[in-house]
């Protein structure tokens, strides 16, 4: 049996993990499972497509960084798109979630996010149709890296990017003021407010970071597979599974949960075929909820 599935699974797992980090942060700080998070991923990918297109249209085509399929427009455009996706999340919060937070009932926010998710996705279909789009049509040659595993240069670059992003997130949450405030609000919002933490700023930071991370996983997926309006929504179940597996609120948990889901999906594809791939996340989710609902690294809810 080839070990290729392991490499593919780890790659898929890294992008699931990055998406799940944003999801687990919104869940633990805003206290609702946000169904629009998958659509932030799709919007992130399309926004990056737009910024990259605008940059190359403005300055002209740029050289690729060999052996990768992309050049500096994707890096600059990607950073811009991350900011824009964060803004999109903020905008949605201001229009929808903020007013609902005042009236209470967390679960009403889940319904609202379900509706917003559908609207965001349909909006992409309206703007770009459901035809897939690509950052680059260049064909990448996969390079053997030993043990019968082949990896494309883009995949390797994206793995590196994922690692950098996770370390940056870890530093942000443990070393900066806003990061510590975020953790405080996630542990005890009332107490955090009492000690003078600016909860509104924490909520803004959470949306910005969640949106930016979603954008990164959208770019990863767009660069290595394709860009479709449904791409993020299709990832939603793996994202939930990863967040639950790792334990709600845990950044490293979300990443490890993502890797587990990714490898399990790739393994299932190897063993029973690709048809039932999307059921794997569900099986993991149910198993975890039955055995250990607080996840691998989560804390028991008080």
């Amino acid at each position, binding site marked *: 049996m080839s070990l290729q599935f392991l490499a593919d699974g780890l790659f898929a797992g890294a992008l699931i993990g990055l998406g799940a980090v944003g999801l687990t942060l919104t869940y633990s700080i805003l206290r609702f499972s946000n169904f629009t998070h998958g659509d932030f991923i799709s919007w992130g990918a399309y926004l990056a497509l737009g910024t990259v297109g605008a940059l190359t249209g403005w300055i002209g085509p740029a050289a690729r960084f060999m052996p990768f399929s992309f050049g500096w427009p994707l890096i600059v455009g990607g950073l811009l798109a991350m900011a824009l996706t964060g803004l999109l999340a903020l905008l949605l919060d201001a229009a929808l979630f903020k007013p609902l937070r005042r009236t209470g009932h*967390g679960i009403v926010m889940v*319904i609202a996010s*379900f509706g917003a*998710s559908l609207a965001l996705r*349909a909006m992409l279909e309206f703007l770009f149709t459901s035809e897939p789009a690509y950052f680059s049509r260049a064909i990448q040659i996969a390079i053997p890296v030993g043990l019968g595993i082949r990896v494309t240069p883009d995949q390797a670059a994206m793995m590196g990017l994922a690692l950098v992003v996770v370390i940056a997130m870890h530093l942000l949450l443990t070393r900066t003021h806003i990061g510590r405030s975020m953790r405080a609000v996630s542990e005890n919002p009332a107490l955090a407010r009492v000690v003078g933490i600016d909860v509104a700023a924490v909520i803004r930071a959470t949306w910005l970071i969640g949106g930016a991370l979603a954008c990164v996983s959208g770019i990863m997926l767009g660069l290595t597979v394709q860009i479709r309006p449904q791409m993020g*929504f299709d990832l939603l179940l793996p994202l939930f599974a990863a967040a*639950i597996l790792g334990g709600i609120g845990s950044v490293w948990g979300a990443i490890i949960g993502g890797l587990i889901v990714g490898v399990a999906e790739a393994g299932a594809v190897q063993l029973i075929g690709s048809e039932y791939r999307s059921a794997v996340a569900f099986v993991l989710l*149910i198993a975890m909820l039955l055995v250990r609902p607080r996840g691998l690294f989560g804390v028991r809810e008080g």
Partner: protein
Amino acid sequence: MIDLLGYGAFFLVNALIFGVLCLGLNVQWGQTGLFNVGVAGFAAIGAYVSAILTTPDAADRIGGFGWPILAGWLAAMLVAGAAAALVGLATLRLRADYLAMTTFGIAVTIQVIALNATALTGGPFGIAFIPRPFSSLAETPIAFNAANLALTGFVVLGLFLILETLTRSPWGRVLRAIREDEAAAASLGKNVNFHRLQAFALGGAIMGLAGAMQAHFIGFIAPDNYLSILTFQVWAMLIVGGSGNNRGALIGAVIVWALWSLSSLAVGTFVAPAFQARAAALQIVAIGVALAAILLVRPRGLVGERATVSRDVEALAGESTSPHEPVRD
């Protein structure tokens, strides 16, 4: 004119079947506060169970049981209810959000099974030749639609009366007590999780019935009928009509289905074929925005929940507890 009447009956049958879905969701969400994003999944279970049991023999898939339609409906309710009970067993003791994720997952998984377990479900091509009630009348569409409207109306009325009775029963009051204050209900000795499980299974069974009714009315099912858009439509209907109110659930179903059908008709008539896919996407955006707007502006919906108390209390209190007095929510 006759055509219009026939279409009216056809429209109402569809709308009322959505109404049944809404009644099921109302038991779960409206009465008990259980969030279910897998409505499409439970409808699919009902549809496929009944279709497999009632269709004549087909060469490429398991079947040929040829059960009567009514038996198919009952089986659909049983299996969908059992599936809901299983989901409930796994998640009802946990936070409400976990139920949301799990029901979302089950809908995705059932869709995947419908798409790929070709030997059971016919795969992407679905199941055809599902026996339709009053199929002998199929030559005259108006008679066929009218007869089906009578049947559907009868089922809806019966279900509505049963659910109204349950809502007013001590059992219904326990459900609302759990919804409003779980700890208080538990402290009065109510078994919170068992009541939730019952409500969730009952709601799932009703959704299964609706799925089966729809499958038999149309005569054909395919996995694409059970995407998350269906769940979303049912939620929009319940929220528009008024969650917690069975009458609201039915009114919401008819209104939202009317708006949906009208806008589809408008898209089909006035939009050039090349842009129809885009216009249909915009239609979904509009209904998504509308749902969010109603949640913000009028969370009670059109009708809203009435204060339901025991008949005895109503008799005692007379006018002081007007049934139209809105309760919190």
